[in-house]
């Protein structure tokens, strides 16, 4: 084997949970059927989770509950786990991520864990690929990214989209492991609810969080958008996570530990 050549790279894309989900693998066996089967297992698991948790599907477990909190004594183990994670998220974000009283697709307000389910489900489904020896993974679910890299291989380069001009990048971060998650109003308008007012949060245009776990990077980014004005100060207190924030006026700021190159000077100043 020639170690100086770039490892082969292959991508798979599927539409799941109303999102484009792309899996990129680098390694010697990306053309092997066994690897393709593992990728299919990832997509299949995400579809299965969507069938349980989608609040847009009246026949899903959450759809049937119609906004009621699942009963932990009778709920399916995955549903129970998500309910517990939502409680943990509420505690970790000082109440700024709160799945209990959100506007529901069918009208009214109620329990909607969608803001957490994506990151949770992607991280869970990715287990089919993270233990693939000798292969690097870059999984992007609608702009939220999970990364794994074999020692000795180059880190993945993740472009951070400019919310004002999505074809341009605000910054590029190199990460070998962990997650990069972005929440904001660029693509879907103000869809994140301020739990204190029950109204769409609009003070922050976009927040990108980099850190070890996709579930928490995603939850923190969403909570920061809901939080608004003082979000950056709060993000700076999170152990192991760094963030880049674009406010409604287009001002770009980052926490002091932000790993990207572009804003290093500004973040320090």
């Amino acid at each position, binding site marked *: 084997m020639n170690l100086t050549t770039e490892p082969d*790279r*292959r*991508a*798979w*894309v599927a*539409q799941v949970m*109303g*999102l*484009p989900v*792309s899996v*990129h693998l680098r390694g010697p066996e990306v053309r092997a059927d066994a690897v393709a089967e593992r990728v299919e297992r990832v997509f299949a698991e995400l579809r299965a989770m969507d069938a349980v948790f989608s609040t847009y599907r009246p026949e899903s477990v959450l759809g049937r509950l119609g906004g009621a909190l699942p009963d932990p004594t009778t709920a399916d183990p995955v549903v129970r786990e998500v309910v517990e994670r939502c409680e943990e998220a509420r505690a970790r974000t000082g109440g700024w991520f709160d799945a209990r009283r959100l506007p529901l697709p069918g009208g009214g307000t109620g329990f909607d864990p969608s803001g957490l389910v994506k990151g949770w489900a992607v991280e869970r489904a990715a287990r089919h690929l993270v233990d693939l020896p000798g292969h690097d993974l*870059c999984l*992007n679910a*609608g*702009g*939220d*990214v999970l990364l794994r890299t074999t020692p000795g291989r180059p880190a*993945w*380069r*993740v*472009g*951070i*989209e400019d*919310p004002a001009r*999505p*074809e*341009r*990048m605000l*910054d*590029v971060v190199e990460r070998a492991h962990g997650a*990069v*998650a*972005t*929440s*904001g*109003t*660029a*693509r*879907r308008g103000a869809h994140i609810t301020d739990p204190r007012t029950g109204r769409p949060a609009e003070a922050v245009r*976009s927040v*990108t969080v980099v850190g070890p776990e996709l579930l928490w990077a995603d939850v923190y980014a969403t909570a920061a958008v809901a939080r608004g004005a003082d979000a950056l100060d709060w993000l700076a207190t999170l152990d192991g996570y760094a963030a880049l924030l674009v406010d409604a006026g287009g001002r770009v700021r980052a926490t002091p530990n932000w790993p*990207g*190159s*572009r804003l*290093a*000077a500004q973040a320090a100043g």
Partner: protein
Amino acid sequence: MRRITIWLLSTVAALVLLFSYKTSTMGAGGDTSAIASGSDGSAGSSWTATDDGSGTGSGSSGGSSTGSSGGSSGGSGTATGSVTQTRWGPVQVKITVSGGKITDVTTVQVPDGNRRDQEINDYAVPILRQEALAAQSAQIDTVSGATVTSDGYRESLQSAIDAAHLR
């Protein structure tokens, strides 16, 4: 068609001149390009940094290097190339750099002697811009952004990156 190709080459030559300027300390009006014919090029090149971290000079006095083409210094700003005299008239381009990467390419001056020139410019300039930006995005493995819906995906940079690796 041949004329378009040659025109595009000369435009790229202007870009090449620009980079030569940045990476070496070539003076204004260098005539290293086979296509750039004139010794005119007196306008010189200029580099304006917008990021105080990049430590570059400005103006046309030369030597204001931001590092090699790798751009690891993370410089940001705009650079305007020398006016390059081509057979069809003067060409000058401007690049915008952010984090050491080209984020935009625009023309400051293009030959506009007649309607035919204008047609060619309208065709070639967007291609040049697209090529330069595509070369940059090739260095990104994936894009993190606010949730892309399935509809928005088709026009996204992520879809272009995915498409490049689907087989």
